[in-house]
Structure formats: structure tokens, C-alpha cells
């Protein structure tokens, strides 16, 4: 059983900035099943932190605990320097998470409305982010009238409009085709550059991880542990298409794939192997 838990704080530059999110020995069991095993991790403020891992490695469990939707069985999660007047987090969910009974505008304004923010602020902020995501013209439509890509744009606008301390994204683009995905990567990065909020982004796509992330954490096949954490030193702002020309990009993708490969193989042999 290979399990080196590399600590995230050891950044090459030496002095690490104060962590925004700290996890200490976070463990989560589903019944007798160990989903996450002693995750210890620091995520500095304003970092775009990406988690990759084979399916069933507990990525989503980790994110749900950061969102407060699930509690760790053991261990501690700390989010420091909470900004007063802001929600602690907002999540962009995997798949269709827009309320079908609300228009684009009402969906994007949901978080602010639940927090009883002044109507004038809602109008301004929601208008801003629907503009940024190119969905302002569709604000009166219902989700069933939108394509999958448009729906995820609204979902992103909803999360950013809520102006949270940290942003959590759970494979938000996994259901989209390649072209839409590339467009949305560009848009997400453009919006993110404005605010530089701390992001925890979950994906199973290595390309996506390298394109978006400052740091990439590779997880082991279940139970989820930290296999390694890789720094992505690609310059920002990034051009999503140009990026693929860069030798450093290819190398990062290759290295992370090599790490991930072992885990994916292990998941597969476990599934095809001994019965359950």
C-alpha cells in the first residue's frame, strides 16, 4: 500500500501564504466504508485548487464537507479569515442544479435573495454576472429552454453573484462537449481573475486541471488519500487554447496522468477483480 501524504504547504517559493482552508486528519466513513482517510491539507488564499482522482475516490465527499453539506467523521476543517457579510461558500454543482421553476434571473439571484440582500444590490450584482457569463439576454427564460452549457453558465453566475468566501466546483463541466468546455474554461478564468477567490475545483479531467489550476492534488483510489500535490507554474492570465502549445503544459499533463494512471488502474482491477 503506497501512501505518501505530501503536505501541501511545502511550496517551492519558500514562505507559504496564510492558508485559507486547512484540513487536519479529515476522515469520512460511509458506514463501515472508508471514503476519505486522514486528509491533511492547507490551501492558501486566492488559490485555484484542483482535485483530480479516479471515480469513487471521495472527491465529491471532500467537497461536500467543505460546503458543510456533510460532516467529517473525524478531523477538523477550518476556513480562516471569514469575510463578514459574505457566505462562507457557494457551490457549482455537478449536473442540473438550477431550479426548473425559476427563471435564469431568479436562479442567479437565489443566494442573494436567501440572504435578504437589498433589491438594488441584487439587480446590480446579478446583472453583472449574467452579463459576464453571456446569459443576460436569456434572463427571462426557464432552464428547460437552455442548453447544458448555458445552464452551467447560470450556475456559475449564481455562485459568483452570491459573493462567497470560497468557491466550490464539483465537476461543473463534465457533462459538456469539448467545445463548450473550452469556452467555459475561458469564461470561468476571466471571471475568476477579477475576484481571485479561493477555489476548490473537482474534476476527473487532467487537461481541465492543468488549464485551470494553480495547484493540483491527485488522490488515491478509495479510500481517498493525498497521492501528490503539483504546482502549476503556467503564467496568468491564461489563454486556454494557446496554453496547449506550451511545453510545460504537455509535461504537466503527462506527469499528472502518470500519477493518476496507477490509481485508475487500481480502481479498475478492484472492480473487475474479486467480486464486489
Amino acid at each position, binding site marked *: 500500500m503506497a501512501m505518501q501524504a505530501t503536505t501541501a504547504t511545502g511550496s517551492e517559493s519558500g514562505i507559504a501564504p496564510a492558508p485559507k482552508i486547512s484540513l487536519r486528519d479529515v476522515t469520512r466513513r460511509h458506514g463501515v466504508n472508508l471514503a476519505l482517510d486522514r486528509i491533511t491539507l492547507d490551501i492558501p488564499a486566492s488559490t485555484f485548487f484542483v482535485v483530480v482522482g479516479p471515480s469513487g475516490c471521495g472527491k465529491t465527499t471532500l467537497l461536500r464537507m467543505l460546503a458543510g453539506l456533510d460532516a467529517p467523521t473525524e478531523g477538523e476543517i477550518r476556513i480562516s479569515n471569514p469575510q463578514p457579510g459574505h457566505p462562507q461558500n457557494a457551490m457549482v454543482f455537478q449536473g442540473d*442544479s438550477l431550479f426548473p421553476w425559476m427563471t435564469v434571473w431568479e436562479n442567479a439571484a437565489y443566494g442573494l435573495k436567501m440572504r435578504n440582500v437589498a433589491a438594488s444590490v441584487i439587480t446590480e450584482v446579478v446583472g453583472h454576472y449574467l452579463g459576464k457569463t453571456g446569459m443576460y439576454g436569456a434572463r427571462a427564460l426557464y432552464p428547460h429552454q437552455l442548453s447544458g452549457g448555458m445552464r452551467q453558465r447560470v450556475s456559475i453566475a449564481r455562485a459568483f453573484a452570491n459573493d462567497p468566501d470560497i468557491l466550490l466546483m464539483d465537476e461543473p463541466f463534465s457533462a459538456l462537449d469539448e467545445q463548450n468546455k473550452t469556452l467555459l474554461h475561458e469564461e470561468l478564468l476571466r471571471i475568476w481573475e477579477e475576484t481571485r477567490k479561493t477555489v476548490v475545483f473537482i474534476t476527473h479531467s487532467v487537461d481541465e486541471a492543468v488549464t485551470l489550476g494553480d495547484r493540483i492534488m491527485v488522490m488515491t483510489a478509495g479510500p481517498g488519500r493525498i497521492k501528490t500535490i503539483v504546482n502549476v507554474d503556467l503564467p496568468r492570465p491564461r489563454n486556454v487554447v494557446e496554453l496547449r502549445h506550451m511545453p510545460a503544459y504537455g509535461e504537466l499533463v503527462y506527469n499528472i496522468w502518470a500519477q493518476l494512471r496507477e490509481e485508475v488502474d487500481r480502481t479498475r482491477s478492484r472492480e473487475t477483480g474479486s467480486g464486489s
Partner: protein
Amino acid sequence: MTRRRSTAWAWNDRSISILSPLILLGLWEICARTHLIDVRFFPAPTNIVKHLVDLAASGALWKHVGASLYRLAVGFVVGCIPAIVLGLAIGLYRPVRAAFDPLISATYPIPKSSLLPLILLIFGLGESSKIAMVAIGVFYPVVINTAAGVRQIAPIFLDVGRNFGASRFNMFRTVALPGSLPLIMTGIKLGAGMGLVLIAIAEMVGAKQGLGYMIWNAWELFDVETMYVGLFVIAIIGFVMNTGFDALERAIVPWRKG
């Protein structure tokens, strides 16, 4: 041009739905006039309409329609409101479901019309027994569909509500109620139809007015045309009710596809 074509299609669909009953009536008329069918049992539609106009002019028809509509409306409200409340509670809270689910599943298959003698026993021959029959008919489809409506709300919507800080009340107002509304509307439509069936049956026993009484009384007097007038009027009420609920549904459930 696609726009024009689609409106033309919509118009065509509508004209077909208007034409098809008219064609059927036309055939009926021809068969009656040529005595292909026995006019003692199947009088010509034009005669029925003439009779309908007579009854309407004399005021006799309105008395019966009014009585039936009143019972239908009151029974609908009496059955519908507790059904929605109970249905939401069953959908949202496990203990409520555990308590009521078996009761509802056990009593639901009983034909509601077979309850009429019992209802008459309990409520007597007056208005309340008619209203109770309608209420029972409305209650079941609404409660069952409302509970199912809450339970079919995808868990992700509850997560979204929690993640964006919805309070308990807002969770109910912005997620549970709108999420179950499409099925609540389905239940209401089914319930209203059931109410119409039951009011006609209930009025055949121990009533002195109402469409059910009108039909039954016409049968006893072998006044076949009046009987048909009663049936026509019930059909029209059913049609108007359905159209009305469809319009209501489009207004309050604008996200429902198709």
C-alpha cells in the same frame, strides 16, 4: 417562416379538436333523421339542443346547474386543501408518511361511489352528503399526487437550498412547494374529474335538484331529451373545468414542458 408554420399547425390542431365532436354530432343527426337509430333512445342532437334552450329559458336548467356547481365548488375546496397540506407533510416528514401511507393505500381502492350509502347514513340526505362525496373524490388524487410530487424532487435541489442558505421556511417556499406543484396540479385535475363523477351519482339519491337528480328524474319519467340535456351539460362542465385548469396550470407552472 417557421414561426408562421408552427402557428398554422397549432391552429390546425385546435380546429381538428373542435371539428371531431361536431362531425360526430352531424353523423348522429343524420342517423336520427333517417331513422337509422331509434329516436326514442337517441333523439336528434338538434332536438336536444332545442330542449336545452327551452329548459334554460324556463330557468329549470339553471336551478340544477347552480346546485351542482355549488356542491362541486364547496366539495372541491373541502377536499383539496387538507389533501395538499397532508400530502406535503407526508412527502416531507417520515413519521407522517409512516402514519398515513398505509391508511391511504388501504382505502384508496374502495370505489368512492360505493361509499354513498355510508355517507348518506352519516351526513343525511341534505347538502352535506353531496359535498362530502365530492370532497372524498377530490381528496385521494390530490393527496397521493402531492406526496409523490414532494418525493420526486431531486435531492440536489435540497442541497442547493441548503448551500445557498435557505431557511426552513424558504426551503418549503422556494423548493418543496414549487417542486411538487406540477404533480399537485395533476392531482387537482384528476380530483376535479372524480368530483364531477361523484356529484352526478350522489344527486341521483335523495336530492331534489342538481344535474344528477335531473337525469334520474328524467329517466323515471321517460323524458329522454331532458336526460340528454343533463348529460350534455355535465360534459360541457367537465370540458370547461379541464380547459380552466389547463390555463391555470400554464399560469402557475410555466416551467412545465409541453
